């Protein structure tokens, strides 16, 4: 014979055990979730910082190229290159030529002309000086043209080099950013910890005891009723 109170107490105990078990699982799951969120946030922050650092490097390279190819820089480059080309392309015979009106290098005189009359020599000198002047004009024009185009330090190669240099740095940083993004994706693939709640054996035993106690209490009563009948 069992006291009904015993069954009730055992049943309450079983409920308490199950409740405690659920609380424990929920607590562990919450901790696991918090850890997962912290892990993801850390990975995200790390990627964001790395991405920003790489982006700033790429931006710096881009700004440098803009500084190199802006209008003022190109004008300055063209002017400098034009002067260099003019000097480089002008033959030494013209450079060495005197600045006087009838000065000309002696090697331009043909043999025998040194015996010409002063008037003729003057005229020859004038022709040669005019030829030198014409050549200077054409050389200067050619230097100007080439300074815009394909000379060594003309605008075309200079601008190309500026963009290529910045492009290489931007490509490098872009490649690094893609790699960092792939690492972040790998971290995002980490799933949260899932805890499975299983019934406690103590809870099961308590429930069984409570059931047995209740059955004993109910069964004994029936027998006495039958006996009285």
């Amino acid at each position: 014979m069992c006291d009904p109170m015993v069954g009730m107490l055992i049943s309450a105990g079983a409920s308490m055990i199950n409740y405690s078990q659920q609380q424990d699982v929920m607590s562990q799951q919450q901790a696991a979730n918090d850890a997962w969120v912290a892990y993801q946030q850390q990975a995200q922050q790390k990627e964001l910082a790395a991405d920003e650092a790489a982006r700033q490097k790429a931006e710096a390279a881009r700004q440098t190229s803009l500084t190199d190819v802006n209008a003022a820089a190109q004008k300055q480059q063209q002017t400098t290159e034009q002067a260099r080309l003019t000097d480089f392309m002008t033959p030494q015979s013209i450079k060495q030529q005197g600045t006087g009106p009838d000065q000309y290098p002696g090697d331009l005189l043909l043999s025998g002309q040194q015996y010409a009359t002063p008037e003729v020599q003057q005229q020859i000198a004038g022709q040669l000086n005019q030829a030198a002047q014409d050549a200077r004009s054409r050389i200067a024009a050619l230097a100007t043209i080439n300074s815009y185009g394909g000379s060594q330090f003309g605008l075309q190669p200079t601008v190309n080099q500026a963009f290529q240099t910045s492009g290489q740095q931007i490509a490098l940083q872009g490649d690094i950013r893609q790699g960092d993004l792939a690492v972040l994706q790998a971290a995002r693939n980490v799933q949260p910890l899932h805890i499975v709640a299983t019934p406690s054996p103590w809870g099961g035993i308590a429930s069984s005891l409570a059931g047995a106690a209740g059955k004993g209490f109910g069964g004994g009563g029936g027998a006495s009723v039958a006996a009285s009948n």
Partner: protein
Amino acid sequence: MGGKSHPDNSQMVNFEKQQADQAAAKEAARQQRLNTGTQQINDIFSNANFNQPFYDKYTQAILNYQMPQLQDQYTQAQNKLTYDLARAGTLNSTAAGYSQGLLSKQNLQEQASISASADQQTAALRNQILNEKQTAMNQLYSTEDPTVAANTAASMVAQNQITQPNLNPLGAIFTPLAVGGAGAMQSSINNYYVQKGMQTQPPDTSTAIYG
């Protein structure tokens, strides 16, 4: 009772974390190789190797090849003009000065043209080296192996040594003027014959020949 372990997927989670950590380590190593490889390529193609004297040497070699040819032709043209003028009796005349001026101007302009061509060929060499650097960079990104990329860059440096400039011999530059000088002489001879009443050929045939 509380705090006891329950079944979970920790094994899978740990494996995924391990994979993520390995990916991070692998990426860090890859980035290190990229930076190292980039630095190697930049060093190979830097001014320490491809500096101004390197390009100046190339430019000067072109000039040294072509300028003497021009000078030879100019000297021949001068001599021919001298003989033509002397035969025409116009060596010490204003007409001689005019011809000399034309010849001199053509010579100066051809010198400038050769210089400009040498400079442009050097610019093309610079561009070629820039392209080689870009190719080395592209291969670095493809392989992610700085050693291979550096070898590629070094190989390109070696290849660059055998790049040949355009060194075609100069064509006949002063021929028109020299023929013009002969034409002037022929014209003088014709005038002489006309004055003597012994013109040998109509003037138009001489212009056709000597233009």
